[in-house]
């Protein structure tokens, strides 16, 4: 099958490094190509739109223009990047004058990377921005993934946490109120999926964790408390910000709740990689603050 372009976004090169590592490892093992977009820039996330709408759209459009050249779909693993790029596509489609303004500015200033002859960048609106959940379930297929599972994660209970921006306001590849793509993928790994996790699409607080820690703590503790109460050993996530929020403050959450919370927060790609027998270092597991190895060991002690 034809490969995909890959838009990491700023977080996947930083706090979300394990996401990139496990994503590339899993796609590689499945034989699906992922080419990092040459000279991609920050998508603007939620912050830029709060300051300047036109510039925010221009920023995002540059990435789309870069991606259009290959004709391949663009995979954006971070939920926020995914939403920004998809929303930008919709806005350019709906608003002709916006499209003209942005594209003319783009053509007047930016050139195609890696070419000496200063070819101006253009965008005609044809890039499909996809989330890896979508690609893995709908293009590759759960069966193809299950076939590659050599070390099923039996006895591990995993709560699938989608976060908000891949189901709201757009939900092109999954159900808005009860998404199941991650559930399906996790099911293929052989683990026990916590299907009735009621907060699977509740907001984790995103960047408020950084800017207003008390507020963020409130949101995060609710998500953690419920998962733990339902018997989750691990929480699976699809976004670097969700991952950091759920993982980074567990000591504080433990204080708040009056009970010890020590739950590994793994990217769903890491879990798939583990089930495929890919070694933990390649999957970036050593970068976790809350390590999963003790949980895995504790589980086999029951068997």
């Amino acid at each position, binding site marked *: 099958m034809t490969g995909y372009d890959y838009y990491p976004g700023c977080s996947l090169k930083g706090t979300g490094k394990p996401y990139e590592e496990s994503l590339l490892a899993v796609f590689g093992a499945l034989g699906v190509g992922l080419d990092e977009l040459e000279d991609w820039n920050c998508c603007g996330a939620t912050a830029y739109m709060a300051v300047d709408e036109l510039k925010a759209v221009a920023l995002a459009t540059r990435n789309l223009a870069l991606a259009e050249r290959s004709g391949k779909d663009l995979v954006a693993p971070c939920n926020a990047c995914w939403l920004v790029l998809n929303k930008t596509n919709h806005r350019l489609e709906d608003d002709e004058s916006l499209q003209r303004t942005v594209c003319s500015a783009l053509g007047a200033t930016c050139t195609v990377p890696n070419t000496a002859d200063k070819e101006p960048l253009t965008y005609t609106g044809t890039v499909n921005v996809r989330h890896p959940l979508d690609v893995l379930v709908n293009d590759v297929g759960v069966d193809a993934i299950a076939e590659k599972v050599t070390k099923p994660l039996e006895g591990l209970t995993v709560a699938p946490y989608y976060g908000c921006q891949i189901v709201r306001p757009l939900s092109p590849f999954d159900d808005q109120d009860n998404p199941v793509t991650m559930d399906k993928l996790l099911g293929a790994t052989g683990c026990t999926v916590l299907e009735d996790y009621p907060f699977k699409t509740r907001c984790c607080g995103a960047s408020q964790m950084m800017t207003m820690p008390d507020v963020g703590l409130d949101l995060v503790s*609710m998500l953690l408390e419920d998962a733990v109460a339902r018997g989750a050993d691990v929480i699976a996530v699809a976004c670097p910000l969700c991952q950091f929020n759920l993982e980074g403050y567990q000591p504080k959450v433990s204080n708040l709740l009056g009970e010890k919370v020590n739950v590994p927060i793994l990217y769903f790609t890491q879990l798939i990689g583990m089930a495929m027998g890919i070694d933990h270092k390649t999957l970036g597991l050593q970068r976790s603050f809350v390590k999963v190895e003790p949980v895995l060991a504790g589980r086999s002690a029951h068997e």
Partner: protein
Amino acid sequence: MSESNGTPRIGVYVCHCGTNIAATIDVFAAQVAAESMPGVTISREYKYMCSDPGQEIIKEDIRELGLDRVVVASCSPCLHEETFRNAIADGGINPYYFQMVNIREHASWVHKDKAAATEKAVDLIRAAVRRVRLHEPLEARRVPIEPKVMVVGAGIAGIHAALTMANAGKHVYLVEREPSIGGHMAMFDKTFPTLDCAACILTPKMTQVRAHPNIEIMTMSEVTEVDGFVGNYTVTVKHNPRYIIEEACVGCQECIDACVFRNGKTPDEFNLGLSKRKPIYMPFPQAVPQVVLIDPDGCIEFRTGKCKKTCVEVCADRNAIDFQQEVTFEDLNVGAIIIATGFKTFDATRVPRYGYGKFDGVYTALEIERLVNASGPTEGDIVMRDGRKPKSIGVIHCVGSRDKNTNEYCSRVCCMYSLKLSHLLREKTDAEIYEFYIDMRTPGKGFEEFYNRVEKEGVHFIRGKVADVYPEAGNTGKLVLQAEDTLAGMVRKIPVDMVVLATGLEPKDDAEDVRRTFNITCSGGGFFMERHPKLAPVSTFTDGVFLAGACQGPKDIPDTVAQAGAAAAEVLALVDAGFIELEPNTAFVVEEECSGCKTCVGLCPFHAIAYDNGKAHINEVLCKGCGTCVAACPSGVIRQNLFEDGEIFEEIVGVLTNA
């Protein structure tokens, strides 16, 4: 009667319609312009032509000036064509020597440019003046009305309408799709605001219906086709088998006891799946007719053919069970039809965040009606699906109503029935009850007082639409309702044992099919459309077909009964007149010239054209004057009264004179 000798004498009357026309059109200029049109004897303007003095002017002019054609330029013919035709008939000339010009809906109400609008009005008047010269003196045909009537749907609306008409001596066919009459009202426990027991006030009426010599009840029946026209409908009714011979069954229910199923396995429809029934069952204890029925999907005899048939054994002396019963069809002639097919409740799974179907503790309002009902699945005890008795209950208003994501309209009854359910639940359980509302809509008689009563009983009222329903942490089994308490200005998270969703009312799933069968229209929201929201709330645009009850729009029982009575009165007025006058704008075939090509026969939407002896023949009683065959005839030998080619061409010439 004044007839001219060849040169028509036309009177033209331009109406001001108050300011409706006069504010945009220069009616005086129009009147003057008409004076010089060919054949016009007199041209006048007047403030309200449709009024008595207005009509009197026309009649006087006919008498004094010997007019034999009249043109009135005013509003839509839908409103006053008949008024003026009657006026000129009164004045002594044939009513069809009349042409109405719409310079309101077609000119003053749709254009802002006064000069252009006036010019358009004058053009339209000129067209009418030219046309009316060619009008022929036609006679309206009278057709007798079939005195039998039909009511489709036997809920409270259908029941009340049927009784009213039956008491007036009419034979009523009461057609009901379910195995018993009674509709939704039979499922309710108490009704607001009086807390009358629904069954106690409904069952006497049901009994009256059963005993009435003029009412023929047809349950398990549906209307599949409607042919004909007002006063003379032929309705095809399909009778679905209940596998019981109705006349033989006495309702002893021994067959149910004897059934090989020791316990019911099929979800009981009347109890909304909260209890189970056997394949042979009585729809509900007070069913009319008091006859059981067999469900072929559940019955072993139907599924395998190898049942002991203990039911048949026990019914030996009456032999009422008949596994061979089949669908039958029947054609009935009726003069008028009342549609009272009712509503369906909103499917709460369409709002996933309220958890209906996902969490056991979430119920719809109708399910609660069955729970609190003494003849319901728990005999009136408030016991939840998991056996718990709720100590706290949340009631969520506007589920599937006032929401562009589901239904934009307000369902009208939910605020009141929520209050009622809160009252009943509190009475039975003493639970803490929280009603989450956006507005409290309590407009009827005694409604506001009932709201005050329930407030006094200690029910909490929180103004805020519930955003989310989720299980409480720590496996308590409770569900948390999260909403902004807008009046307090704070977000509240309230854990409750049971959640009640005040689901809205919707048209039934097959409303589209039903409306096509009866040739009526639907309004926004999908309910059947009344002819006029203020002045004709029970009529439809199809003469002879009337509406009653929630099928026309969400409403409570008092309004339903009132509307049913109104529909019955309209039917009685129609039928008691004895005859119907048919508009003579029908098409006819000039038979000598018909080549028998049959092009027209299949085209007629009203099946009015027959092919006989090589010629097409139009039944003028069935013909509605749509003009399809007239346009289609390749030989041009089909003509239409009031729409002759010559008349139409004159109109065209008149409109284009100054183009």
